[in-house]
């Protein structure tokens, strides 16, 4: 039986549904290429802002037992340098047929539009709009993703600044994620990514009595957040008609299947790289393929979203 793992995400073809999540290994063209060679169906760059940023001091990332907690603080070389990285990466990815998603952030709505416009000149396949990082705050000091109106504002501004398809990445740390999803869909998002890190959380070192992260709090990711991510994806898919990239705690083929059954079009993988290395993409892809074969599925659409049926 022929097996087709490919995905159409906003008109872009992914050879398989596994997407390298932003902030993981997405810092250089050779690394992005390596991840693609390891089996990713698409790769996302580390979120990039208008100007270079150093990020927070260490400790920035800790394995607390249920996954990771991080407050890296969006270190990035700024959009000018990023354009170079992306241009090189696209060239190296082209022969592999693996598309590139450029992730962007900014501190203001106008900043988002400016970065989107500039990054578009490098011609990534899609732009991911990271409105959900705790380090990107709207006027009122909170991430744009925590409020439907600011989320929509950013989306509309980016929509106007580029002709590329845009994915808006949401935060789970809200009372009603569906309201935010509807708002960004209405404002012109071509797709939604969910979820960014959970929390924030805090892990205290009981010997010093101090929070371990230099930033004191950080976003929680990895296996611990999977049930939250699956529910968010399920609820968003029931409410919007744009495709959803389901992200959060996926570490194996079974988890990818679960995300697809919740309705995700593609599946982001981030923290799993910690235990599994870049090779984890090939492993998850092969497990997914093996599971489909064992269950007589020829393509993802045969079981995508079936958790919604009763």
């Amino acid at each position, binding site marked *: 039986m022929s097996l087709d793992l490919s995905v159409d995400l906003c008109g872009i073809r992914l050879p398989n549904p596994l997407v390298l999540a932003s902030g*993981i290994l997405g*810092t250089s063209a050779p690394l992005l290429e390596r991840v693609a060679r390891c089996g990713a169906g698409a790769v996302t760059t580390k979120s990039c802002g208008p100007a270079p940023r150093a990020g927070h001091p*260490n400790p920035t990332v800790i*394995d607390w037992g249920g996954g990771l907690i991080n407050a890296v603080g969006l270190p990035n070389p700024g959009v000018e340098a990023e354009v170079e990285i992306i241009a090189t990466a696209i060239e190296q990815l082209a022969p592999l047929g693996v598309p590139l998603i450029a992730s962007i952030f900014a501190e203001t709505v106008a900043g988002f539009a400016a970065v989107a416009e500039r990054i578009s000149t490098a011609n990534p396949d899609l732009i991911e709009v990271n409105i959900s990082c705790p380090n990107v705050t709207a006027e009122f000091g909170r991430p744009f993703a925590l409020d439907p109106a600011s989320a929509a504002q950013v989306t509309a501004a980016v929509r106007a600044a580029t002709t590329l398809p845009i994915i808006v990445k949401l935060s789970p740390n809200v009372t009603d994620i569906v309201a935010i999803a509807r708002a960004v869909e209405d404002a012109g998002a071509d797709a939604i990514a969910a979820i960014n890190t959970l929390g924030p959380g805090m*892990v205290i070192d009981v*010997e010093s009595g*101090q929070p371990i992260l230099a930033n004191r709090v950080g976003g929680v990711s990895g296996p611990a957040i999977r049930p939250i991510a699956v529910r968010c994806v399920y609820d968003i898919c029931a409410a919007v008609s744009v495709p959803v990239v389901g992200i959060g705690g996926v570490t194996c083929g079974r988890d990818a299947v679960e995300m697809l059954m919740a309705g995700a079009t593609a599946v982001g993988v981030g923290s799993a*790289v*910690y235990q599994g290395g870049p090779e984890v993409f090939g492993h998850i892809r092969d497990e997914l393929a093996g599971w489909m074969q064992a269950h007589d599925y020829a393509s993802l659409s045969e079981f995508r979203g079936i958790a919604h049926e009763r």
Partner: protein
Amino acid sequence: MSGNLPSAARIVSITEENVRVKTLVLNARAQAQPGQFAMVWLPGADEKPFSIVDDHPLTFTIARVGPFTQQVHALNVGDRLWWRGPFGRGFEIVEGNGAHLLIGGGYGAAPLAFLARRLRAAGRQVIAIIGAKTKAELLLEARFAAMGCTVVVTTEDGSAGGRGLATDVARDVAHRERVATVYACGPEGMLAAVERLCAELHLPGQVSREGYMRCGLGVCGSCHHGPWLVCRDGPVFTVG
């Protein structure tokens, strides 16, 4: 669900190796290969990577170069510091006839001392070339000698040993003696010279690289070196 949080350990001894370098022995144990590193944390200060220079008891050799290492140097016996690790890939002890040639520049001598101890314990012949800018910055020569290594010292200003680069000394040694493998740790420029030397002499080599470490876990991408992550695929890389 136990994770890999930093553990606190008490300093049981401090040795001043030279004007800028101290060796701190902790009341902790690890299971590490020479070349692996740990992230060393001082709450309220910072967390930085350091080579494990002995695992049993856990030992670090730390050069004072900036704010964090300054704070570490201000610690006394009985004070605590925190560490998580070991991380990364260490030196692999290679079979083969001849001497094991160790080339250490600056604090790079520290992880090589750990390697030398393992090599000597396995009965191998070790030639250690210890280089520094100047005499005051030479590190651990006596320790290598005490282990039964042949030690060759070289300084850029000639204030101790011969004047010149460690890699030039290495070339001389390799012309005189049969060399099994070259192991090097030091500044990036020296490592590049070692790479060229290994290629030139058709010698297998292993070099320990630096990278800017944030997570130490192979996820953040900050330590990239080409397609590799220094914290996970390194810090020791094969060359030649």
